[in-house]
């Protein structure tokens, strides 16, 4: 028991920094979500759950939830499937893994503010690289950023471009930890790659899968820069996500109270999603997590 108490001391430095620097702003933001607070004017007035009630009656709120869930689900699953495929490919590859690994990781280190601009130069109509390549075959491609369906697709691809490398790196690491003897014995039994991957390797790295999915889901819910630069929520409102709405409330309308309430709801929604992922991943063995 003495050991257990001693462990708390290890939390002190980190806890101190977090509570000094992060807890106040976070707490203050949550506190403000119960106030009518217009940044330009009078001091905040307490309105209880008024902001939340207003949001629940707001068609824009529900619309942006739908679009957010769609974009998050699309982006994270694309990243996971692609990341896993590439990681497994790397795992199987017997040569050239190191340089490939490094090169593949590069999109992840591009500064996010500019990453979106890089992609804009690819996807913009006419003078964008993608258009130019397709047009050289005399095909007129769709407007990647200007038609609702394609704009959502492009935004998902943009997120995947930056974060699939993260998935690859972590999943590749995970695959390498899987016990070789298990794989070999399965191969003896004549199991193919697919069986080995889904029956042996994936179950073995389940905690890791949860880790990457959770991290990505959280971040994708806050996904902002790329949408802001690529589509600015458009065309129409096709890519208007929760964070875009939060931004509009906080910085354009200066309604800090309502924006904070939306932030809290975003937090709850992503917690819920992660809870759902845990429930699905661990549906057979509940106690394990």
């Amino acid at each position, binding site marked *: 028991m003495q*050991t*257990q108490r001693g*462990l708390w*001391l*290890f*939390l002190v*430095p*980190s*806890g101190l*920094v*977090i509570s*000094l*620097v992060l807890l106040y*702003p*976070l707490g*203050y*933001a949550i506190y403000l979500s119960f106030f009518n607070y217009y*940044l330009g004017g009078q001091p905040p007035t307490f309105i209880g759950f008024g902001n939340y009630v207003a949001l629940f009656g707001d068609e824009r709120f529900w619309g942006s939830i739908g679009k957010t869930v769609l974009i998050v689900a699309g982006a994270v699953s694309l990243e996971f499937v692609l990341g896993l495929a*590439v990681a497994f490919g790397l795992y*199987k*590859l017997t*040569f*050239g893994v190191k340089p*490939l690994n*490094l*090169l*593949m990781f*590069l*999109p992840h*280190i*591009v*500064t*996010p*503010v*500019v990453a979106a*601009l*890089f992609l804009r*130069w690819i996807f913009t109509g006419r*003078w964008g*690289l993608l258009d*130019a390549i397709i047009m*050289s075959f005399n095909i007129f491609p769709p407007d990647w950023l200007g038609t609702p369906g394609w704009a959502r697709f492009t935004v998902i691809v943009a997120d995947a471009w930056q974060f*699939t490398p993260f998935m690859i790196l972590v999943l590749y*690491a995970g695959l*390498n930890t899987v016990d070789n003897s298990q794989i070999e014995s399965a191969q003896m039994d004549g199991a193919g790659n697919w069986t080995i991957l889904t029956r042996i390797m994936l179950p073995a790295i389940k*905690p*890791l899968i949860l*880790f990457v999915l959770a*991290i990505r889901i959280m971040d994708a819910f*806050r996904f902002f*820069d790329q949408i802001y630069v690529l589509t600015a929520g458009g065309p129409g409102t096709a890519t208007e996500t929760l964070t875009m709405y*939060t931004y509009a409330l*906080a*910085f354009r309308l200066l309604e*800090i109270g309502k924006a904070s309430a939306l*932030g*809290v709801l975003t*937090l709850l929604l992503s*917690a819920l999603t992660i809870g759902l992922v845990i429930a699905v991943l661990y549906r057979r063995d509940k106690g394990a*997590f």
Partner: protein
Amino acid sequence: MRPSRTTQMVLFLALCAFTVVNLTPIIWAFMTSIKQPVDAFSVPPKLIFTPTFEFHYQVWVEKEFWRFLINSAVIAISTVCISVPIGTMAAFALSRMRGGGSRGILFGLLAMRMFPHILLAIPFFVLAQWLSLIDTYPMMIMALVAINQPFTIWMMRSFFMDVPLELDEAARIDGCNLWQVFYQVALPVVRPGLWITSLFSLLLAYNEFLFALVLTGPNTKTLPVAIAEYGAEDLNYWSLSAAAAIGIMLPIVLFMMALQRHLVRGLAFGAVKG
């Protein structure tokens, strides 16, 4: 049952193709940075042109971006040096704790990561203003350390989870105190994991934009902020952004190349288990 040579070649080429597609935006941006705007955005795109390093020169020399690189480096390295050690300690504790307390803390940490950052910007500014720490290194570093903690702790905890408890117990029997168990027994085992965690922490601190925009000023401005100042409006700004954005990647690439052995070992050790 070794895979055949043809399968290996096909696999290799497929992965190469993927890599090339992935790198296209970066290569294209680099080409943009060495073209005059009239050529950079022409239709159809120009593949043959006279390269100019004018924009790279302007960015790094005339506009003195090397100053911001120093700021970025100071802030990012300090952040890693503080964040990773204290996060590692906390992670060790959380990996050894029994009972619901640790799980509560872990989920609390995640919640901090889930809250939209744009809403933290204003309270952060007010706090920094109140402490008279606007435009100073300590404020920015502390903010980044705090933001970094959830990720660092979660990641390091997963490494510690893989260190068998028997190892701890054996050390305890040998008379080690808790600190010695952590420092002399557990830490050496997870060292490869430290590199990976450091890399991700470094990336986060180095590329952070929003808080840097709000908390830094003329004395401490970081590279992402400096780049973002050349948003759009004039086409020259795009070329400048491209040049700066390519330049800002180099230190990280060099860092990764220098550490690749450690990173691969860290990865192979892997075990990023939750």
